[in-house]
């Protein structure tokens, strides 16, 4: 062996190592690919050798080649080999390679589970560290599920190095295995207060990531984060927390108010720019969330803007960029404060850094007003002329159009100016945005009726000068505007001064070089123009002109008939024939103009893109109502459930509509009024009444712009937008003068009122548009909102993490961890039972949570019992006092750790109440200083009115809270450390199992223990539930069992049996045997005969209980079945020992083949639509339990999950281990529950329904 190693090492000396490989590649620049392929061949040889050092070296080289883009997935198995080396050096190489090239599709990953688990529990912290690092890169859902428990244990490791890695990786585990979030969360929360700053930072990091996606679930952590924020000095942590608060404040404005002060302090005190910047950002978020201002509101904005100005003025480009970025956020809510810095922002447009220029452009977008739009656009136009590089110029162009067209052209007061801007923009060389300009032209011409004459004139000019646009091939993009020009001239040809000339321009031979779709529009609109010309000459004495026009068409159209473009050809030949016919009629002096015009009659109105979708259900139309009499109950089974499901779906959407009608309507009406008020084009009933407040100082605010006469590339006859600036100027001043007159008049009448407004600058409303323009808005159905229905990405992994964590700790709808939420433990898997000793070792590692709690329990037993009793007493007291929400939080910190321990074990029935929520409320409603008794006593701020009796206690404990909390937490973590040092002893295990068993018992006993049931509230909590049912019992032993499907293997179920020793004797040599049926077989260890019993891997001292798991393989799962079995054991008392046996019947229900599987409603709907499912139904009479109890029971006992619940109706889903879908629709109405069900396996469904029926008949 030793010789072999030495030999291997000598061999290795001749191998290339990574450095040789790199050097080789550098020396073979000419034929790199060839060289590398020979290297890969060598590597393949090396991988075939036994020596792990050689293999590791090969894998190391592969990692390098992977970076160069070579696929090395073929070596995945070798990587796993190297990972499992006992040497850290090689292990690290292996894990690095795996982290670089493993992913979810790598099949060998499933081989790594045990290796990783071993490394995680290695005594060497760096083995563990390397495994965690590697795992963070390639964790799969399977790995996450299997290792979640081990990683959770590591979160309490003694070494902070491991703790912080374990905490961080939990985020990846949550992403891949969302079910682990609830069980792991209490401990994660605990880590926020870890003594090690690194661990703390990691925990903050993870919770921030989680909260960013689903902030509402983490609102209750705000007080804790607040404490961290005010105490921490680590800038990284502070930044994360402050960012998190930025995400939380929109949900809770009160939080924002509380934050302002400390954040402002930080802004003043910190020297770190990164921290300052994030503070400013969050203050902005807070200000945005505080819709109704607070008194010192403006001070905060001023502070932010002022700090940002410093950033923007900084020479560091990064700060400048970020300053602009943050500024744009303020802009949304407080445009005024930003607008005062317009100079600075315009200055940034000249910056050499394109990113900064683009940011500044973004800002400009929000800064425009009616007043400054023209000026800003003029500046931008100058930049357009100056800009080098088409990308930036194109960006400018789109920005100009964006700025002008935003919110329905809100800021445009003069559309002639806008049209001329658009026309000027057509002169841009090489722009890609011709279609954008074109669509603007079309939009304005169609929707602003008053501007049509002007637009048509401009467009006619464009058509006339078309050669300027199309002359250069490079400017191809711009010819799109001709499309718009031709259409506008055609459609609104009645405004044309000289239609003949335009017609001529449209039929020039040069047109044939334009793209096909534009030619088609040309041809079509030539026909429209023709119609107009005919009309014009109708009735005129000489028909010569009209006939000349016909002749022109007849001459020019053949050119288009020959077009290669189908559309052009078709239209041209159509119209040509038409014109020829008309020509004939003209020669006969028949009046045709009327008929020709009729071809193009009717107004074309724009329709909003989503109009069709938005048509609401008219009032009085009930889509759910039966059109005919509903079919009687006795109708065929097959049809009924279908109808029910279909009906259900419409029901989902209906309430939404009605709600919208009530509140939304009012809101929309309000919004519309608002919009009309802001819309200069809406003719108000008394426009002057708002505009009379005018004064001279306002004039100065209007920028005076000189006409720039030296604009290059002036197209003859084309208008210059600049002239409008001047005109507009004059117009406004004139208007103002008039108003002033009016005002004076008014002033004389009413002296006091006008004064108030005198000093104020000119307001938005004061600028009236040049001519009253009537914007024809896009056609939309009444009541419809043009907003998008935003569909969330169903593939977003974070959606699955939207888990309400509050109720884990405590909450109004307390939902403790259910059995199914326990993190999986390895023994569930298909490992047959081993001999007692062996099993003890194996089991002790993965069953960490149980062990942990048991050890802790043992150690803390006295402590804890006392605690418990105390809390029990307290709770009882509370109960007497009818429970007061206020005193709950005081107890919370002390209780939480205990609770979290328990939750890992079994489903604890609901504890406590809305404590967490009210805690937050309380925290938010008060000042940071502990409240005085009076404050708390006042019932107003408290969510629940506090009964007098509890008042005395409440304020005290409340005030003590911060002090109390810390020592408790410290104590708790100490315990954990101790516990980890403890040896794993079998005795202990038994102890713990006993506990576990007891736990189950008090559930089934039905709430004898008032602690577990918590304090009752109006909303009844769920009664305790347990799935364990009696298997068999005699005077020595009692067995209860539960059956769970095995998700990993569709043919297996796990039977957990708890054995309880009821006698005073020692029970040993227990053997569990079952008579296999054809369908179901007990899995026995290899080599055992089919009739051999399985040794139960433990002994039972008197009064002790323990649990064993047995794996059965099943073939068909559609039928329930019973298996007969026997337990044999030896009863050993002090003087004698007897052999005893106990027969039992294991009942495999169909329910036990179901596995709780979450399902999203959209997937659910799809499933139902697919039509592959058979249906069946069930009615239960006389069920008088609350609906949520009913659902909880079905969920708990029958492994369903609720997909959606609406009032007294819920859809549920579950999946069998063999992948059958089971869908339920549960409805209840006065004590009758009807369940409609669908499943792809009818007999399975029938049996499940029977079992559900039975469940409810028992209660």
């Amino acid at each position, binding site marked *: 062996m030793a010789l072999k190693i030495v030999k291997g*090492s000598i061999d290795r000396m001749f191998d290339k190592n990574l450095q040789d490989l790199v050097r080789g590649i550098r020396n073979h620049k000419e034929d790199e690919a060839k060289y590398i392929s020979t290297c890969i061949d060598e590597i393949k040889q090396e991988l075939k050798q036994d020596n792990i050092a050689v293999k590791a070296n090969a894998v190391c080289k592969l990692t390098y080649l992977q970076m160069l883009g070579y696929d090395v997935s073929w070596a995945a198995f070798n990587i796993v080999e190297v990972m499992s080396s006992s040497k850290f050096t090689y292990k690290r190489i292996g894990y690095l390679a795996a982290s670089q090239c493993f992913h979810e599709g790598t099949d060998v990953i499933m081989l790594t589970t045990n290796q990783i688990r071993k490394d995680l529990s290695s005594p060497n912290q760096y083995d563990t560290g390397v495994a965690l690092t590697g795992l*963070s890169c390639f964790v799969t859902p399977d790995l996450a599920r299997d290792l979640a428990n081990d990683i959770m244990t590591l979160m309490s490791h003694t070494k902070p190095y491991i703790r912080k890695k374990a905490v961080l990786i939990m985020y990846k585990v949550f992403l891949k295995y969302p079910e682990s979030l609830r069980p792991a969360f209490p401990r994660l929360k605990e880590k926020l207060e870890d003594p090690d700053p690194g661990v703390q930072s990691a925990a903050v990091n993870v919770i921030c990531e989680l909260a960013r996606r689903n902030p509402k679930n983490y609102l209750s952590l705000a007080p804790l984060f607040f404490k961290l924020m005010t105490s921490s000095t680590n800038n990284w942590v502070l930044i994360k927390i402050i960012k998190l608060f930025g995400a939380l404040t929109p949900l809770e404005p009160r939080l924002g108010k509380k934050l302002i002060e400390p954040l402002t302090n930080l802004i003043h005190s910190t020297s770190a720019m990164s921290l300052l*910047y994030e503070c400013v950002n969050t203050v902005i978020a807070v200000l945005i969330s505080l819709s109704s201002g607070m008194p010192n509101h403006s001070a905060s904005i001023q502070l932010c803007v002022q700090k940002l100005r410093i950033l923007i003025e900084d020479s560091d480009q*990064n700060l400048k960029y970020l300053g602009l970025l943050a500024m744009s956020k303020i802009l949304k809510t407080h445009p005024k404060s930003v607008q005062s810095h317009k100079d600075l922002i315009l200055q940034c447009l000249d910056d050499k*850094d394109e990113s900064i220029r683009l940011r500044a452009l973004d800002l400009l977008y929000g800064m425009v007003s009616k007043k400054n739009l023209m000026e800003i656009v003029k500046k931008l136009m100058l930049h357009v002329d100056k800009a080098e590089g088409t990308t930036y110029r194109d960006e400018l162009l789109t920005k100009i159009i964006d700025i002008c067209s935003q919110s329905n052209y809100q800021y445009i007061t003069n559309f002639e100016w806008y049209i001329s801007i658009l026309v000027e923009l057509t002169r841009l060389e090489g722009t890609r945005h011709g279609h954008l300009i074109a669509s603007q032209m079309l939009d304005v011409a169609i929707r602003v009726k008053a501007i049509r004459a002007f637009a048509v004139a401009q467009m006619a000019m464009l058509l006339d000068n078309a050669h300027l646009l199309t002359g250069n091939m490079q400017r191809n993009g711009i010819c799109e505007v001709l499309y718009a020009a031709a259409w506008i001239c055609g459609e609104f040809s009645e405004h044309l001064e000289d239609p003949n000339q335009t017609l001529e321009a449209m039929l020039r031979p040069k047109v044939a070089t334009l793209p096909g779709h534009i030619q088609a529009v040309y041809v079509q609109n030539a026909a429209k123009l023709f119609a107009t010309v005919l009309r014009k000459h109708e009735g005129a004495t000489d028909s010569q002109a009209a006939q000349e026009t016909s002749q022109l068409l007849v001459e020019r159209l053949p050119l288009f008939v020959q077009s290669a473009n189908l559309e052009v050809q078709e239209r041209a030949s159509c119209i040509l024939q038409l014109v020829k016919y008309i020509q004939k009629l003209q020669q006969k002096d028949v009046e045709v103009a009327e008929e020709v015009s009729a071809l193009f009659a009717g107004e074309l109105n724009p329709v909003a893109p989503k109009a069709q979708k938005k048509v609401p259900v008219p009032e009085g139309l009930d889509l759910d109502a039966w059109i005919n009499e509903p079919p009687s109950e006795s109708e065929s089974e097959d049809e009924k459930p279908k109808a029910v499901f279909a009906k259900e779906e419409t029901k989902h959407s209906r309430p939404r509509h009605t709600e919208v009608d009530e509140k939304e309507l009012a809101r929309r009406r309000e919004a519309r009024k608002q919009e009309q008020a802001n819309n200069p084009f809406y003719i108000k009933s008394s426009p002057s009444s708002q505009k009379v407040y005018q004064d001279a100082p306002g004039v100065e605010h209007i920028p005076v712009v000189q006409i720039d006469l030296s604009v290059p590339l002036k197209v003859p006859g084309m208008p210059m937008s600049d002239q409008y600036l001047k005109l507009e100027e004059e117009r406004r001043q004139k208007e103002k003068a008039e108003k002033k007159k009016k005002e004076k008049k008014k002033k004389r009448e009413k002296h006091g009122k006008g004064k108030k407004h005198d000093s104020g600058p000119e307001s938005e409303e004061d600028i009236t548009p040049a001519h009253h323009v009537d914007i024809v808005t896009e056609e939309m159905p009444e009541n419809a909102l043009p907003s998008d229905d935003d569909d969330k990405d169903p593939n977003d992994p974070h959606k699955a993490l939207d888990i309400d964590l509050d109720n884990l700790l405590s909450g109004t709808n307390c939902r403790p961890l259910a059995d199914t939420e326990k993190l999986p433990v390895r023994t569930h898997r298909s490992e047959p039972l081993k001999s007692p000793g062996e099993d003890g070792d194996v089991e002790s590692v993965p069953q960490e949570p149980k062990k942990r709690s048991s050890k802790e329990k043992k150690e803390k037993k006295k402590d804890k019992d006392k605690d418990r009793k105390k809390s029990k007493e307290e709770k009882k007291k509370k109960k007497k006092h009818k429970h007061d929400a206020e005193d709950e939080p005081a107890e919370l910190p002390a209780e939480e750790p205990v609770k979290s321990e328990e939750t890992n074990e079994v489903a604890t029935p609901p504890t406590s109440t809305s404590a967490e929520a009210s805690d937050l409320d309380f925290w938010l409603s008060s000042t940071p200083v502990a409240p005085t008794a009076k404050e708390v006593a006042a019932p107003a701020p408290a969510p629940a009115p506090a009964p007098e009796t509890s008042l005395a206690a409440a304020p005290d404990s409340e005030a003590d809270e911060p002090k109390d909390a810390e020592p408790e937490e410290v104590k708790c973590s100490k315990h954990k450390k101790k516990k980890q040092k403890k040896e794993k002893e079998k005795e202990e295990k038994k102890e713990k199992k006993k506990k576990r068993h007891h736990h189950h018992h008090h559930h089934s006993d039905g709430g004898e223990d008032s602690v577990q049931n918590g304090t009752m509230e109006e909303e009844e909590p769920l009664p305790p539930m347990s799935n364990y049912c009696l298997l068999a019992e005699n005077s020595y032993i009692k067995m209860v069992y539960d059956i769970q499907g095995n998700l990993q293997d569709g043919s297996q179920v796990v039977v957990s049996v708890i054995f309880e020793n009821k006698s005073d004797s020692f029970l040993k040599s227990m053997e569990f045997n079952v008579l296999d049926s054809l369908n179901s077989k007990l899995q026995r260890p290899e080599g055992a005969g089919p009739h051999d019993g399985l040794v139960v891997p433990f002994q039972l001292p008197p009064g002790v209980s323990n649990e064993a798991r047995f794996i059965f393989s099943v073939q068909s799962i559609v039928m329930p079945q019973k298996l007969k079995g026997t337990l044999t054991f030896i009863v050993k008392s002090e003087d004698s020992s007897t052999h005893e046996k106990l027969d039992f019947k294991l009942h495999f229900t169909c329910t036990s083949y179901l596995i709780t599987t979450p399902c999203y409603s959209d997937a659910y709907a799809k499933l139902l639509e697919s039509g592959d499912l058979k249906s069946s139904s069930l009615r239960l009479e006389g069920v008088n339990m609350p609906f949520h109890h009913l659902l909880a029971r079905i969920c708990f006992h029958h492994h369903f999950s609720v997909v959606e619940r609406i009032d007294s109706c819920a859809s549920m889903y579950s999946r069998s281990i063999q992948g059958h879908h089971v869908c339920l629709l549960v409805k209840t109405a006065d004590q009758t529950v009807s369940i409609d069900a669908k499943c792809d396996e009818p007999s399975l469904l029938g049996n499940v329904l029977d079992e559900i029926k039975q469940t409810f008949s028992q209660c």
Partner: protein
Amino acid sequence: MIKAILIFNNHGKPRLSKFYEHYSEDTEQQIIRETFHLVSKRDENVCNFLEGGMLIDGSDNKLIYRHYATLYFVFCVDSSESELGILDLIQVFVETLDKCFENVCELDLIFHVDKVHNILAEMVMGGMVLETNMNEIITQVDAQNKMEKSETFIFQSPRQDR
């Protein structure tokens, strides 16, 4: 979250690539190439942020980079990271490399990409920042190197290449 960390030289040759989400080798190379094109055409003295969301899916992604002599250090991050914070982190990374390699230069990264990976692993894990304290990082890296040394055979003394 950090989506990817790339180091390449002035010619776009990758010196280290670490993706925290899986992409095929081809996509990875394409991302490196495109990132290089985006970053390399920027002048010095312009800001170190680039909105390059198209490269790696997710529209709120940003490229944050620093240019040192012949090397570009590029971090692709989403909006949960502080821009200035990441710039500092890059600085810490480079300073750590400098300490570990003693006057780091491109050649160190060329020949010892595995070591660079190991150092990086102590700073960023699975796309989340693990440690920002340089001393702590160096302590952990040194401890692991020591362990590695104690394991090496006499025959395997690694040649020192530069």
